[in-house]
């Protein structure tokens, strides 16, 4: 084979990622959150740039999930401000966050267990459905046309995630790995600008993890989605993410590229040191 041919190998995937000074999509400034006397997050600031994959790591109880819950509107921080797409706010309700283009998945999978895969992903289209209440009762005309369009979109996601075979199965009975995939599908159905993934690979075997990694990278490539993820598998984090923010006991202890973070002494002490 010619030299040119061997060079055909995939261009470094990070090439598609934005330069270090890309446009900021979300900015967290000096956010603090406490439950009663317990301080979950203390004065954390960082930003997420358009089109990047941003990892949030840290030992258990570092406040990672709380951080996602703050961004997503589940928790309202006592202090600090959050700028999303240029709009400043300190607190918003979850459905406002959803309407603003933030989608998420959960650490322990939160699906609508009694519903089929299709219905679960269709539920992700809730906000995109424009026709009002009256139209829904009359299932013809514009409402039907809209339904068909949504269904087509959802089928695209099913194809994307390769879950055609479980299209009509109730999700409660699916294996865990597939449930995670359906959950990702539901988040993608929202066509989010920012996708928050809470431990997308937890409890998966090697093969499932690789699939999930591929879906995450493809998601960015295909839909241009910005992704923030919490993950414990360091190999995955280093491979996937453009930049990493490290939390420990609710504080930010490091922020930078995977290589920078890996070399950071406080991270080694606090996190990697603990883990091994």
């Amino acid at each position: 084979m010619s030299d040119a041919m061997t060079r055909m190998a995939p261009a470094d995937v990070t090439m598609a990622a934005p330069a270090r000074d890309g446009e900021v999509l979300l900015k967290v400034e000096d956010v603090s959150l406490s439950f009663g006397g317990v301080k979950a997050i203390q004065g954390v600031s960082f930003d997420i740039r358009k089109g990047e994959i941003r990892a949030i790591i840290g030992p258990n109880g570092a406040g990672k999930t709380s951080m996602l819950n703050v961004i997503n509107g589940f928790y309202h921080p006592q202090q600090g401000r959050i700028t999303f797409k240029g709009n400043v706010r300190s607190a918003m309700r979850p459905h406002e966050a959803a309407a603003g283009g933030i989608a998420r998945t959960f650490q322990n999978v939160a699906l609508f267990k009694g519903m089929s895969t299709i219905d679960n992903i269709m539920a992700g289209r809730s906000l995109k459905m424009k026709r009002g209440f009256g139209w829904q009762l009359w299932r013809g005309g514009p409402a039907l046309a809209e339904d068909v369009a949504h269904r087509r979109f959802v089928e695209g996601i099913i194809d994307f995630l390769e879950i055609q075979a479980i299209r009509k199965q109730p999700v409660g009975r699916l294996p865990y790995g597939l449930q995670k995939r359906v959950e990702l599908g539901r988040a993608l159905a929202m066509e989010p600008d920012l996708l928050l993934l809470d431990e997308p690979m937890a409890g998966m075997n090697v093969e499932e993890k690789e699939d999930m990694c591929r879906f995450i990278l493809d998601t960015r490539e295909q839909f241009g989605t910005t992704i923030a993820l919490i993950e414990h598998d360091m190999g995955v984090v280093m491979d996937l993410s453009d930049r990493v923010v490290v939390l420990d006991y609710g504080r930010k202890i490091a922020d930078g590229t995977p290589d920078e973070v890996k070399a950071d002494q406080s991270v080694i002490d606090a996190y990697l040191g603990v883990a091994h």
Partner: protein
Amino acid sequence: MSDAVIAKGDGDAARWRKALPALATLGALAAIVAAAMTGVIARGNLVYDVFIDPFIAIASLPDLFVQTVWEGFVAGVLYALIALGFVLIYKASGVFNFAQGIMVVFAALTLVGLYEFMDNAGLPAGGFLALLALVLTLAVMFALAVTVERVVLRPLVNQPEIILFMATFGLTYVLIGFGEMVFGGNPKVMITQALGLPTGVSDFAILGGRVSIQHLDVAAAIIATTMIACLAFFFQYTRIGRALRAVADSHKAALSVGITLNQIWIVVWFAAGIVALVTGIMWGARSDVSFALDIIALKALPVLILGGFTSIPGAIIGGLIIGIGEKLGEFYWGPLFGNGIETWFAYIIALIFLLFRPHGLFGEKIIERI
């Protein structure tokens, strides 16, 4: 192909174990019948009175049996409606709504009260006025739903279920107090005629006897069935219905896709309010409208035990089983216990069913994969 299933003997054993209570019961019954035939157990013996005599009565006067079953059916439909109110709210908000019974009374009282008020105010009585009162009552139920959401649910969101349950206790007394204050404590008469509900009776000659059927009961059955069908359609095929099922399955997931709980709660409480209104009209038309009616809420409890708190088909089938079972029990076995067994017999029926189907009528063994 039997060998395609390995060790099928063990599978059979498991099935036999499951069938054991049923078989034991059947065996005992067979023994009793045999004993009665051979004269070992005779009239006057308790066993005879319980297991033999009622069935002889059923066989000898089948028309009475049909009459009893019909009455049981109508009662059952109404039980099902009340249970449905519980199920709706429980599914969507995880709240066991103790106030459902009083909502029935409150809705009926509001309807009659508004009608009387407008009648007294000089508006011409009749169908139009009843319709107007109906629409206004719906508006009141909607206002109630919004109020409950604002005042009770929203502040208490994320609190333990027991707290919400206690809150519905409070709601019960608020509604009683408010109702008495506005409409007075005296029993009222349902505006059956003004609403256009039929009142006659038809007699049918069947099985060598007569069965009389109240037209009102027929109407009740038809309206209730239509209502249930509408609700089923609403839940299964509309977006709000899908959102509602989503909320019932997982609050946080529903929130994350942009479904607003508040809106869903209002819809659900309003739906439960409509169900309560329909139940109130039907029930009120058969007796009268007073706060004593709220004991019918207690009837819903065995239905829920039977059908499960989250199953709409369960509520319907459960309601029918309890309704028919309790009327039959009262009629054929009641005299043994000095009558009046209706109040507790429903629970016995529910318990007997649970013996055979421990997961409820429509419950399935839930094996979650983690």
